[in-house]
């Protein structure tokens, strides 16, 4: 075999440079840490954190460990990302379809929205909502209730909470409904392939989703009551609401800014996807006698989704990464709690920044692996 020196030389050189750079960094890090009297290690994660977090989904106070603080931050990041993704998808799909409307006014309104929100830095939008828009809200004692139960105040958004008895029965009933819907769907597909008859899957699914949870109330013993937030006086001029769930203003501002910003990109994805389905496809489908609904369901949507889903997932990923801007308005997400407060207290820059980066990295790599798998699955199999 002819050994290829021309290929070997640049590769060896690259490896050498990489090793040199890493060696240089590691050596310096060791020297620096020795000078400051820190030893490298992740043992600090189990130490007592001794700082508080304003808003957390799990029980947490200063006596818990740094690892628990990490979990609090991670859960808050996931919470704001999920809320943002849901709202962004709803707005994005509506605006994307509006962009395709034949109505000039609707199309223009959607276009202005997209151009406007897309061209302003996200950080500026977060600041705007948090420092300017939400600060204009009334104080708790002056807030007007929306629909009698929601209170939008400068201290946050107070919504009623559901207090459950036997919640597990209810959840099981919903799970059972979903599983039976899947079976109905499989059965319907088989029946259509064998006999060519269509089963009204949608109506059966809706029926199942309504009946099974209802049964859980009447037979399973599940029940709930609604706890409406009530005004409570803390001090002479300080009021708050008690009961219900409080969404802090930071969360609202962040979720609002993230979803309004990301929705513009999702709207463009949706538009591109629907436009990407050839006109001939629709005409062909109509010409073999499918109804407009069937054309949409069986021909247009499957093809449009194939174009829409990959870039939209990318946008979801961007939204999750952008949620780290929370640090700017002190919403306790992963970056603020862990890479901010915990880092300041422990001074362990290398460990903490690397954990934070690895968290985001594993999140995005797992999603992109999922995406590649999905892409391969739905790709048109050409002969």
């Amino acid at each position, binding site marked *: 075999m002819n050994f290829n020196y021309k*290929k070997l*030389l*640049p*590769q060896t*050189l*690259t*490896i050498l440079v*990489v090793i040199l750079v890493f060696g*240089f*960094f590691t050596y*310096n*890090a060791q*020297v*620096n*840490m020795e*000078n400051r009297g820190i030893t490298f290690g992740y043992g600090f994660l189990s130490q007592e954190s001794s700082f508080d977090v304003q808003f957390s989904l799990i029980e947490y106070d200063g006596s818990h460990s740094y690892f628990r603080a990490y979990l609090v931050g991670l859960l808050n990041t996931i919470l704001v990302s999920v809320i943002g993704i849901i709202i962004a998808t709803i707005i994005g799909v509506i605006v994307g379809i509006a962009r395709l*409307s*034949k*109505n*000039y*006014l*609707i199309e223009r*309104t959607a276009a202005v929205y997209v*151009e*406007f929100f*897309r*061209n*302003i*830095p*996200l*950080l*500026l939008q977060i*600041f*705007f909502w948090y*420092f*300017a*828009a939400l*600060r*204009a809200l009334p104080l708790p004692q002056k807030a007007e209730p929306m629909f009698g139960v929601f209170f939008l105040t400068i201290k946050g958004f107070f919504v009623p909470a559901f207090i459950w008895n036997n919640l597990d029965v209810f959840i099981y009933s919903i799970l059972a409904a979903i599983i039976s819907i899947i079976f109905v769907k499989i059965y319907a597909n088989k029946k259509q392939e064998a006999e060519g008859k269509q089963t009204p899957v949608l109506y059966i699914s809706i029926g199942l989703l309504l009946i099974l949870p209802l049964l859980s109330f009447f037979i399973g013993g599940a029940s709930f009551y609604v706890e409406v937030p009530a005004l409570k006086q803390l001090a002479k001029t300080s009021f708050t609401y008690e009961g219900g769930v409080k969404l802090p203003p930071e969360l609202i501002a962040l979720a609002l800014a993230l979803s309004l910003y990301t929705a513009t990109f999702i709207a463009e994805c949706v538009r591109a996807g629907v436009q990407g389905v050839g006109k001939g496809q629709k005409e062909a489908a109509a010409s073999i006698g499918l109804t407009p609904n069937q054309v949409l369901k069986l021909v247009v949507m499957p093809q449009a989704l194939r174009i829409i889903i990959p870039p939209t997932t990318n946008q979801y990923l961007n939204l999750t*990464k*952008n949620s*780290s*801007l929370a*640090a*700017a308005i002190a919403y306790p997400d992963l*970056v603020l709690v862990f*890479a901010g407060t915990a*880092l300041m207290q422990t001074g362990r*820059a*290398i460990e903490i*920044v*690397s954990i*934070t*980066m690895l968290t*985001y*990295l594993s*999140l*995005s*790599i797992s999603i992109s692996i999922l995406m590649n798998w999905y892409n391969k699955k739905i790709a048109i199999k050409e002969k």
Partner: protein
Amino acid sequence: MNKINFLTANKNNLYVYLYTGILLFFISIIDVSLGSFFNINLTSFLPGSISFMLPLFLGFIGLHLIRIEYSGIKPLDTLNKNINTNSFNAFLSLIIIFVIIKSLPPLLSWFVLDANIAGDSKDACTGSGACWTYIKIWFNRFMYGMYPNDEQWRINLSFISLGFLGTVGFFVTEKLKKYLTLYYVVVYPIIALFFIYFFISGGPIFFDFSYGIIALVVSIIIGFFIPSKFKMYYFIIIPITIYILLKYVFFYEELIELGKLETVEWVETGAWGGLSLTFIVSFFCLIFCFPIGLFLSLGRRSDLYIIKYISIGFIEFWRGVPLITVLFMSSVMFPMFLPEDMFIDKLVRVIIAISLFEAAYVAEVIRGGLQALPRGQYDAAKSLGMGYWKMHIFVILPQALKLVIPGIANTFLALVKDTPLIFVVGLLEIVGMLNLAKTNPKWLGFAMEGYVFASIVFFIICYAMSKYSYNLEQKYKTER
């Protein structure tokens, strides 16, 4: 069952329908406009909710009446086709028109009619509208940060000269056009670097690496004139030689000291800020991230496995983490990796971090263009006896880059929008300055004006960029 033709015009009563419809439509619009601009409610004798909904109802009927297909009246047909195709569309159009009419007066009054711009303190703002006085007083700070007032001409002069030097490409003759790439990729950045270094800074912002950068750049220039057979070896030997020459023979540090303008006062980077800092950061990141991204994309498609996997790892790493953690890394973690006596300025660290971050995105965009080229292009170039670099420089890249212009422009747009994040390391560009001004005790309570101002500034910059990239896309669209 027959189609119900409820209130639909036919040939006989066309004009009756037309006039009634138009009348109803205009009544509804006039009612809303009067209510909105002059606060007069024409229908106040009706109960509140009915009076509120009436214009919508009237307008809806009006639009229904004038929905006449092929009426032969051109304006009417255009109107019907655009906003009045069916009941649902008519309803939405009406709502949009009413919302625009309703929101105009408060917006106008806030922006213009009740706004203040006179005076030079908070007391001048008495109206209920915006306080543009605040923007006027702080304008200088929003543009230049804490840069000393007397020295701001240096920033202006640098930006103006760099702007002129940047447009050279439009004026050169056909003969010199082939050197333009060299000019924009190598010469122009160096000129810009010198402007920033000697003029805007006037003092030490660079560091030991600057020998390295100069050595690299000089060797690239020399590399153009060396036969390709030996290129690889020269690229290893020349930078090291120049580095050693600069450091130990010419005493570069003293040269730099000599070259410094005596009259120019040193302004440290901590004082830089405002929109000019946004420009400086985006400009340099833009210049650096493109070549890095280009090499990464070539590396990712290389058939040298080690280079390929190092490139993939590098790209996926930067694409997987948020920029804010990268900036955290550059500010708290990176100094740990340097020798204790080595100091890198905050601004330089930020520029390096953002450049590496955006380079990964640029690399992926360019890879898309490289993948889109048919294999035949590579084969044809190879069959002409071209080597790897010749093939890429003369055949592959010109075509691939043309394909990805919109993608690269989008990445640059994202870069400009990401610059406000540098507040993490304590550098205050325009958004950071706003937050600083907002907390000034003399000027409390004008957050809205500041954010609106910055939004407008960013919108103008980003919208212009996106439109320009769209034009480029149209211009370079080649038929395939």
